[in-house]
């Protein structure tokens, strides 16, 4: 890179946002494409014109019913869950100052899933609307545990935190399986949900978790300037006037609300939260005022792309989105861990 020339306009905040506008627009365009694909593609593919007709009420055939009755809710839920997980991942990485952190690698998704399965077993719950607060409680428990385990090791080592979180995740998954095996009904109710899927849910499922999701998003976006300062280390952040402990707590609450809401609706969908920030950072940089909105686009983009892929690979049957993301996300984690330890 060459030295800056004198007289180049100083990069003020508004200028900076404008500079990134094309990228945001490109992201939105890509997301729109994914939405279109998600509405059109599947076991029974529908032409784009029929999709348009179905959406605007001019078609009433079987195809139209598939679009409006099944794929539209599925796509909307995918957008919401992807956004929640993407932003949760970015906040988790900022708060722990660890590029390997995410709702999956910190065991937060697994904690939420475990709490929900226990609730299904013990309290005979049967709808995602009832899951949300259990999911948040489980997410919070796992988040605290992962932090405590990492803190015992003295200085928090990024790989160690992710490793501890992954171990926690495995333990929670095995407990979850144990609870499910205790009772046939729990097994039936939870198995499909637990694979991580956005299909077979109506929009009614989304409504009850919306408050948690929106609250989590608002907290996350409000924190973004403080997260920028936090990236400079606790000492510098504190001397810049950031109440570090409080910001970290608020960030944790945002992650728990977002991950809890996502898990309640779709079950644990792995690696969206890990991948989205890493996809956005090379494009927009590390400024959280850009990164979080970027993840708001990248999260749904990744989730819908994975969901559509899952519908196409073994047609006419389909893979749950959670299985697709786990399949694609595991190598990504290995890659990132290599990069971090280097």
């Amino acid at each position, binding site marked *: 890179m060459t030295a*800056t020339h004198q007289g180049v306009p100083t990069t003020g*905040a*508004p200028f900076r946002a404008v500079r990134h506008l094309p990228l945001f627009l490109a992201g939105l365009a890509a997301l729109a494409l994914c939405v279109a694909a998600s509405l059109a593609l599947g076991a029974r593919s529908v032409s784009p014109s029929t999709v348009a007709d179905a959406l605007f009420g001019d078609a009433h055939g079987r195809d139209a019913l598939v679009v409006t009755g099944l794929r539209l809710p599925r796509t909307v839920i995918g957008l919401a869950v992807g956004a929640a997980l993407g932003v949760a991942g970015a906040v988790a990485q900022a708060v722990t100052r660890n590029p390997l952190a995410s709702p999956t690698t910190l065991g937060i998704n697994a904690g939420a899933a475990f709490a929900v399965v226990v609730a299904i077993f013990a309290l005979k719950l049967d709808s995602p609307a009832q899951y949300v607060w259990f999911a948040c409680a489980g997410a919070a428990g796992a988040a605290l545990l992962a932090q405590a385990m990492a803190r015992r090791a003295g200085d928090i080592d990024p790989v160690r935190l992710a490793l501890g979180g992954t171990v926690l995740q495995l333990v929670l998954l095995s407990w979850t399986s144990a609870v499910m095996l205790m009772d046939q009904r729990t097994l039936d109710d939870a198995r499909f949900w637990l694979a991580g899927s956005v299909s077979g849910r109506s929009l009614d499922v989304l409504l009850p978790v919306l408050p948690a999701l929106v609250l989590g998003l608002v907290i996350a976006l409000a924190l973004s300037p403080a997260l920028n300062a936090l*990236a400079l*280390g606790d000492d*510098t952040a504190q*001397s810049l006037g*950031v109440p570090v402990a409080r910001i970290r707590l608020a960030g944790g609450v945002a992650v728990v609300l977002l991950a809890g809401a996502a898990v309640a609706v779709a079950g644990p969908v792995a690696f969206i939260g890990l991948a989205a920030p890493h996809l956005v*950072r090379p494009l927009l940089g590390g*400024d959280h005022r850009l990164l979080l909105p970027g993840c708001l686009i990248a999260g749904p983009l990744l989730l819908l792309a994975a969901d559509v892929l899952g519908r196409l690979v073994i047609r006419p049957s389909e893979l749950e989105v959670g299985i697709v993301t786990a399949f694609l996300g595991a190598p990504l984690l290995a890659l990132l861990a290599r990069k971090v330890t280097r």
Partner: protein
Amino acid sequence: MTTADQLAAHGLDLRYGDRLVVGGLDLTLPGGAVTAIVGPNACGKSTLLRGLSRLLAPAAGRVTLDGADIHRMSARALALRMGLLPQQPVTPEAITVEALVRLGRYPHQRLLSPWSAADQRAVDEALERTGTAGLRDHPVDQLSGGQRQRAWIALALAQDTELLLLDEPTTFLDLRHQLDVLDLVAALHAEAGRTVVMVLHDLGQAARYADHMVVLKDGRLAATGAPADVLDADLVKSVFDVDCRVIPDPETGTPLVIPKAGAVRHSAVSA
């Protein structure tokens, strides 16, 4: 003389867990001056700086800024008056020099208030002053040690505080860059009238660049005052366990510590 920006410790105890690192310290750091905190390794220099800057809560006693307890101020209120450069700050991946320095404006901004002309002016001035304006679009993690340290000082300058605390700002730098950083600090003091408190390792540099010296030994105050009054052979012997002569620095006339030959390590004395 009562000056503003006077930082003081009153019966200050600082602990890490059970370990008392700084004990019963009473200290006044003159406002408008450059103070150097010196002492042997593990004497509590950096711990004292952490205590003075609120990074470490005192186990007993108080730290006051112009009489007000800094632990009763809000984080932001203190950040508007006191900047700090930690010994090993964390550099976020791929952040540019200007983006780093802009973060120094954090305490001046509100959530929805836009980046103001005053903010930009402070950033530009900090970059100019530290000679990093030409590097503003460079990633910080690709700079040399000296350039990086200047970028971090620029961040602390952009914060625009009357009081600046620096924890060993010259560690890991070669002599040229050490002098650059210290000259920069001296200029800040001389031109902008800032109060500077820094932890230093080198007694000669401390004597050259500081108006006021705080000498610590085992977490206790060994001596405090102007370098010329404080630094003598007896003090160096008692604090650092080094036999030496103290002569006037041929360049500046400030005290210069010259260790005696062969007497530093008895086992090293040749027959």
